[in-house]
């Protein structure tokens, strides 16, 4: 938490601030979209087909006369949920595996890292296809699959960080005082790895947004009302000539989401290093 506090305190940290503002606005819109949208995102209106952006339809309408702004709000919610869930699953499992392997090393390390390699060896889209065939499509299935696919990257970052600190003097002191391994791992070491882990989480979130978008672009993320930004994007592809604003607004939303979280990660990273000085 200190990394965050430090980043907040440091007024010169423009990256962090800008990232927080962008992400904050998007998050507010997503939360708003969960309870209220200007129009019903699935209601068709034959008299308002393919309208360009205007005050009554901020992002215009599609070929069924559906309000794109409302659809994007809902879609961004699905995307954020899947990406957040992915990072939660991948992060918790990855950090746990990385902490154990980095700290203990030896046989545990070899075993778990080979398991990691096994997951990495599968192309993630292929793995996702297999899982969707087995378990059916839908946002929760995609969330689970992506979560598992994301474990190795988190595990690797965490492992390196824990390995670097496992023989630090303060860790040795804690061992001498009789601290249990679990306490050493999560109370003594983990807080000191946050400057590395938090940026990794933001990068992971962005990768998850992109992975989710490409998977639903391929139609793996389930059908409306589960439409995510990727689903919308693949819809918009068909209307590129008649309603280019559809693709632009949806793509722009993905870019904004990634850009905002990316800036936060950048800000957290630039706050690092001064801490131990």
């Amino acid at each position, binding site marked *: 938490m200190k990394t965050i506090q430090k980043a907040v305190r440091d007024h010169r940290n423009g990256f962090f601030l800008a990232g927080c503002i962008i992400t904050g606005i998007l998050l507010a819109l997503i939360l708003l979209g969960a309870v209220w949208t200007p129009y019903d995102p699935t209601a068709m209106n034959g008299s308002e087909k393919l309208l360009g952006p205007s005050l009554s339809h901020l992002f215009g309408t599609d070929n069924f006369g559906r309000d794109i702004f409302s659809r994007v709000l809902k879609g961004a919610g699905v995307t954020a949920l899947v990406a957040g869930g992915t990072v939660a699953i991948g992060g918790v499992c990855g950090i746990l595996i990385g902490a154990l392997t980095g700290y203990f090393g030896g046989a545990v390390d070899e075993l778990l890292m080979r398991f990691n390699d096994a997951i990495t060896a599968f192309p993630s889209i292929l793995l996702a296809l297999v899982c969707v065939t087995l378990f059916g499509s839908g946002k929760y299935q995609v969330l689970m699959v992506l979560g598992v696919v994301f474990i190795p990257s988190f595990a690797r970052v965490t492992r390196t960080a824990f390995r670097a600190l496992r023989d630090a003097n303060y860790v040795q002191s804690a061992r001498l005082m009789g*601290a249990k391994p679990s306490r050493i791992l999560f109370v003594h070491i983990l807080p000191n790895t946050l400057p590395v882990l938090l940026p990794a989480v933001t990068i992971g979130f962005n990768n998850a947004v992109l992975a989710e978008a490409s998977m639903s672009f391929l139609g793996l993320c389930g059908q409306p009302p589960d439409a995510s930004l990727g689903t919308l994007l693949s819809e918009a592809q068909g209307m590129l000539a008649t309603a280019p604003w559809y693709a632009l607004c949806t793509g722009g939303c993905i870019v904004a989401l990634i850009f905002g979280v990316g800036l936060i990660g950048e800000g957290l990273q630039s706050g690092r290093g001064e801490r131990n000085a």
Partner: protein
Amino acid sequence: MNEELTLSVRHLTCGYRAGGGLFEKAVRQEVLRDVTFDLRNGEILGLVGESGTGKSTLAKAILGMVRPDSGEIIHHTKRPQMIFQDPYSSLNPAYTVAWILEEPLRIFGKYDGPERKRRVREILDRVELPEECLAAKPSELSGGQRQRVSIAAALIQRPKFLIADEPVSALDVTIQAQILQLLKKLNQELGLSYLFISHDLNVVYQLCDRVMVMKSGQIVEQGSVEEIFNHPRQDYTRQLLAAE
């Protein structure tokens, strides 16, 4: 069992396994050879020698961090605590001094909050740190203050025996003198025994009662400070003294 002894080490031989993962063959390297000595209660025993002679390995073996190949290490008191050379890395940078000092008591698990706070204040007094330090992070303290916090953290479980591995060599000369004074005072007030590892013979001369001289994993000479410094018997010891 001798009641006057803190520690007995008998014929200790110790090696490292270098490498040795799943697919590589481990290589043995002997670091300590047939080390024998006693540490009496309340005694400050210096351990000198060039770097790489196994001084730190001896400390680690005594602390149980390195498993000996043969020989015996007999602790006559509670397990010792350690003071490290670098006070920057021996304190957890993520927490405040108050947390760092309370942590050994939390780990020990027998004290409630108020009792822990009381003992932290008491130890802070002993190492002559102001109470304002409690709220500070280690990075906000000076080197000397940090080393005082390390000493306090080592002492808070009330051990009778401290191992200090070059505890002052990272500090300025004036701060060095203050920390040495503090160590001497704690030795007298609490009856602590020290194994004091240093390459700085001056410091050893000021602080220690007895000295052991180590060369390539063996103790080549031991005796009182007077004997070793004024009448060294071994060439190696004479060289060390001449190098000062």
